């Protein structure tokens, strides 16, 4: 029952957009969707997705191969540095670039900067697969006369397919939802256009119809990925365990390879952090309004904790059902929550504003509504972590506990929870991180007087007060860093899907 309720809440944005299109009538919806501006946005968004998917695939796979399969010096350090850009929100990264040079504005700059922010999402899964590959296949290929390049293309790459598809899908979904970075880079996409329309008409029909198109694009991506993935089997057959793969000696190419990884790190991490430090030190509008900084940090922390707790609480029963009572209905329930992945924050916010005004005025303009928006958006992250943890906790222990006379509550408290605690921790951390750096839903839904690190950063940087914006950005990076470090240790298991 409870699970169904949660799923219904998670689906509010979908119902809402569909209902809205229906309520304004087909004719009006068509005139609002079928106009040149929408074509322009579609073209921009599509080109950006294609460019970034290609670039992140190359950067992520290349870096992962160097770290996992070669004798590159300092591999452990590189592994951390290559994942670290995840701790710098994309809009802080583009702030770093834009505040130094206007040359990055437009398509090329957008592809570059967004890719630099998101390539770790490809790097992480690809590195995990590369580490676990059975060398036998590659040795067979070599014995059949394939050179190293051909082996990579014909043997390794096909095995990377699920990781590459999964990783680039996340990149694509992130791009569809990305707002701050692209607004700063003056590259309009659906998400930035919806925000502009929101500023010009609150939740008017034009904004809602754009949200509908955006939602459709997200769903198309998800379907496309399912199709491409196909039904191949990738796990190893046969007995015994795979050997550790011998690393490829880089020899004389060591220096260029080091240079490449170094350059990637410098661009993805050095530029934004360097520019933050620069503005902190020299910005004319920099002052450290200590009270404001403390108050905003406290608000961000509070919302982050509230969002994480609510999201985990809502996700738990569904994940539990899905693992322990597997059936058609529970699978459907589980899949429905993943929908939140495809819903950009701005669509969720737009839907909740309108729904709350009409049907729930009591929670309109309160933190409760905002926290619910977070829960809808980040439910998938929580689900993934809880599921993975539950999968590894043998149900037989529950049975043993029951047999020894413990009631369901007692079993939950003494057996299940301790077993899955690390997974719950990772999930909470992931959701917390996402909430702290969330911008669009917060801009639209934050209660009167509430300022978060992200919104304060945004309002300062959009009025070109770079110095004043820098402290808020720095605080966001500092809050995100520990969670990102956790990711490099836990590797792929707890990645947001």
């Amino acid at each position: 029952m409870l699970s169904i309720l949660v799923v219904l809440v998670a689906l509010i944005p979908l119902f809402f957009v569909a209902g809205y299109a229906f309520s304004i009538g087909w004719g009006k919806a068509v005139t609002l969707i079928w106009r040149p501006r929408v074509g322009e946005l579609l073209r921009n968004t599509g080109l950006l997705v294609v460019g970034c998917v290609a670039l992140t695939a190359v950067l992520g796979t290349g870096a992962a191969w160097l770290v996992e399969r070669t004798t590159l010096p300092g591999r452990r350090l590189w592994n951390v540095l290559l994942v670290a850009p995840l701790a710098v929100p994309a809009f802080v990264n583009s702030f770093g670039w834009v505040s130094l040079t206007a040359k990055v504005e437009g398509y090329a700059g957008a592809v570059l900067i967004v890719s630099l922010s998101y390539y770790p999402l490809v790097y992480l899964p690809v590195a995990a697969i590369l580490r676990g590959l059975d060398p036998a296949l590659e040795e067979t290929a070599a014995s059949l006369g394939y050179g190293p390049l051909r082996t990579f293309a014909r043997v390794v790459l096909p095995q990377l397919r699920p990781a590459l598809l999964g990783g680039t899908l996340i990149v694509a979904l992130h791009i569809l939802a990305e707002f701050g970075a692209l607004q700063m880079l003056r590259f309009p996409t659906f998400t930035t256009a919806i925000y502009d329309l929101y500023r010009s008409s609150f939740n008017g029909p034009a904004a809602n119809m754009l949200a509908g198109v955006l939602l459709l694009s997200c769903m198309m991506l998800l379907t496309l990925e399912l199709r491409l993935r196909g039904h191949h089997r990738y796990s190893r057959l046969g007995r015994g365990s795979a050997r550790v793969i011998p690393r490829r000696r880089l020899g004389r190419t060591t220096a260029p390879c080091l240079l490449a990884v170094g350059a990637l790190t410098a661009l993805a991490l050095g530029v934004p952090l360097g520019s933050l430090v620069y503005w902190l030190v020299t910005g004319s509008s920099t002052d450290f309004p200590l009270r404001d900084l403390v108050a905003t940090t406290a608000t961000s922390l509070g919302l982050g904790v509230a969002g994480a707790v609510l999201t985990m609480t809502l996700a738990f029963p569904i994940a539990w059902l899905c693992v322990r009572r597997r059936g058609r209905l529970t699978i459907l329930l589980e899949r429905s929550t993943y929908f939140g992945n495809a819903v950009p924050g701005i669509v969720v916010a737009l839907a909740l504003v309108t729904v709350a005004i009409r049907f729930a005025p009591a929670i309109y303009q309160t933190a409760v509504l905002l926290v619910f928006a977070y829960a809808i958006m980040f439910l998938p992250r929580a689900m993934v972590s809880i599921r993975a943890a539950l999968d590894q906790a043998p149900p037989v222990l529950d049975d043993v506990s029951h047999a020894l006379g413990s009631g369901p509550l007692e079993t939950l408290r003494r057996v299940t929870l301790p077993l899955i605690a690390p997974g719950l921790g990772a999930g909470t951390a992931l959701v917390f991180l996402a909430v702290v750096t969330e911008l669009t839903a917060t801009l639209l839904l934050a209660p009167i007087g509430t300022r978060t690190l992200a919104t304060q950063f945004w309002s300062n940087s959009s009025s070109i007060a770079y110095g004043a914006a820098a402290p808020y950005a720095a605080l966001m990076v500092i809050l995100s860093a520990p969670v990102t470090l956790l990711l490099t240790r836990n590797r792929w298991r707890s990645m947001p899907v």
Partner: protein
Amino acid sequence: MRINGRVASAAGVVAVMLAVAACGSSSAPGTASGTSASAGAAAKPELTLYNAQHEDLMQLMVDDFTKTTGIKVKMRSGEDPELGAQLVQEGAKSPADVFVTENSPAMTNVAGKGLFAKVDDATLAQVPAQFAPADKDWVGFAARSTVFVYNPAGLKAADLPASLMDLSQPKWKGKVGISPGGADFQAIVSAVLALKGEAATKAWLKGLKENAKVYQGNSAVLKAVNAGEVASGVIYHYYWFKDQGESGANSKNVTQMYFGNQDPGAFLSVSGAGVLKSSKHPAEAQQFVKYLNGPAGQKVLADSKAMEYPIGNGAKANPALKPLSELQPPTVAVATLNGQKVVDMMTAVGFL
């Protein structure tokens, strides 16, 4: 399982409530300044202000108001049309007591839905009659002039446009920067619409869509003109003065031109304030509006770094500004500026 799930959820909900309560109390950092001074004023209500003016300016005025009256004000900030449309949707249920904008078209939208209470006559008397609509639904408290900013390195004096309308001509392709997503430019368009009519405005917008480079905000336009990314731009006067006042880093290569001559490009936009009919504290709300365009509020405005024009009777603008009397703005009745129509037209042309 069902029991487990429920208990877990209940615990979670309690935790959320606690956390929400905690962050609720830590919010609104800026409005706390006047509290200690007014210990005896615990009974005074707190006003809710929907603020579309620059937040830093309004914070100064609010703080001064709170200091003298003991009435606290909390702000929700946004853009003119956004907050205006929000008020229309919220209707009688709106938590807002006062609405303050940068430009008047959003005031007209809200007034059109009958959501404003009449402004007190004494408050109206504090500014010249042209700065308020005849039906007394709201009142002006500040003004800003449209300007043409250009980089002399990229644009010769002989090539300067004689009128804002010229910018739709093909020769301006790629040479003019604007921020059409913002309320400021939309107000300028509303003036063009009021002065030139719908057909001419539509044609002008179409030409501009071809020519203009789009930026996010007027500060970004100024910065781009300064850096030579675009030869010119259409913004309000105070961005240049504000930047000059700070360091000049984003305006040192920029010259301002006032169209004057009653051209649409000399449009003087009025920032308005009004009391919502649904306000639960109408007396205090009226008091706040009276403060805004009264001597005390106008002085805070004039002394601030905002560089907008005060318009109260006898109020003196910052001497660095070109005097209000020399701007030669076109005559537009404030009540005729239509925000919603402009947004629809700009959506149709593809700016939004």
